[in-house]
């Protein structure tokens, strides 16, 4: 596995290949950690997302404290990886519902213990992907906040914008996504 510190250095300098590799490494690590923790605990146990990301961080970057920029990039990759894992699980669950034997529903991934307002993660993910095509900064903001758990302030630092700007972006992005996600419901 490539040295994650090197990947971070390349990724922050704009190397897209490194950014993709970084994402893959973080993604694999999060899944691996989730499975390991499960092996030690009873099935159905809950697990702290922030602890998982923290552990992935330590395992991939070692005990040495990476510089601030590297940390930011890492957590951005972790948020993106978390989004993929959760959406994949949601898609898989949806497939199971629509056919097939429901006798044993085993899912080899992590999923939210409780979804507020029964958010359709798949619909949100699709809307977020559409948003990233028109406005990648706002899409990244949403990913950092919703999937990475960053506060608006932390996200503003990662994105390199002022707090006020981040707040404005958040207000608009939320409305836009809510509209996009609700549109789909009416069609059904």
């Amino acid at each position, binding site marked *: 596995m490539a040295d994650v510190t090197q990947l971070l250095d390349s990724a922050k300098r704009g190397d897209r290949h490194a950014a993709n590799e970084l994402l893959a490494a973080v993604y694999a690590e999060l899944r691996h950690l989730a499975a390991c923790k499960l092996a030690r605990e009873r099935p159905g146990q809950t697990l702290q997302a922030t602890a998982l990301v923290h552990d992935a961080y330590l395992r991939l970057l070692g005990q040495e404290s990476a510089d601030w920029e590297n940390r930011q990039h890492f957590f951005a990759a972790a948020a993106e990886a978390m989004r993929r894992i959760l959406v994949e699980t949601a898609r898989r669950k949806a497939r199971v519902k629509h056919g097939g034997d429901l006798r*044993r529903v085993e*899912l*080899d991934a992590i999923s939210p213990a409780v979804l507020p307002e029964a*958010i359709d993660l798949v619909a949100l993910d699709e809307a977020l992907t*559409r948003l990233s095509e028109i406005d990648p900064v706002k899409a990244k903001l949403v990913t950092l906040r919703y999937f990475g758990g960053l506060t608006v302030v932390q996200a503003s630092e990662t994105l390199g914008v002022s707090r006020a700007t981040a707040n*404005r972006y958040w207000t608009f992005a939320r409305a836009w*996504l809510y*509209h996009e996600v609700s549109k789909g419901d009416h069609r059904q």
Partner: protein
Amino acid sequence: MDRVQYEKAEEVFTLALQKPSASDRAHFLDKACKDDPSLGAYVGTLLKAHAEAGTFLDVPVAEVGDLEVNPPELEAKGMEIGPYKICEPIGEGGFGVVYLAEQEEPVRRKVALKIIKPGMDTKQVVTRFEMERQALALMDHPSIAKVFDAGATTTGRPYFVMELVQGIPITDYCRQAKLSVPQRLKLFVDICHAVQHAHQKRWSFRNLRG
């Protein structure tokens, strides 16, 4: 959606929200969008969405209490996948595992069941796995294992079922069977024919079994 429309909508939306009341907002919308009523309508729906969104996205999904970790689908002896009962693992590749399995219906026999490893079912891997299954299904040669069946587990992990071929390394076979040189050559030719068959079907093998 058009980027230009999007940016205009964002601008009008943000300005509208600065107005103190709903009626002020409506008034502002009319004025700002008088030359572009469809923009006005769109921003109107966005403002409505803003009002109705409630706590939408407010609580990070990964922070809502905790995440549930569900068990990875590890195959264990006796576990059933479709009509097949798993006996024991007999082989492993990069992304798949092969099990010795028992089939009851419509015929009783032992088969080889190849399934994608848990957590490996990304789109790319699934596509490759499917290609492998199709490649094997295309083959029609006594030296190449036949594909009997294909399916997916309840969680969507693909698998396919093959003729069980109990093989040992070809060199061991030749030694144990005390094959003469001409016999070994004939065996080699048989394998070449099988590979040629596969090549004619435009596939190549990365691991030949004797």
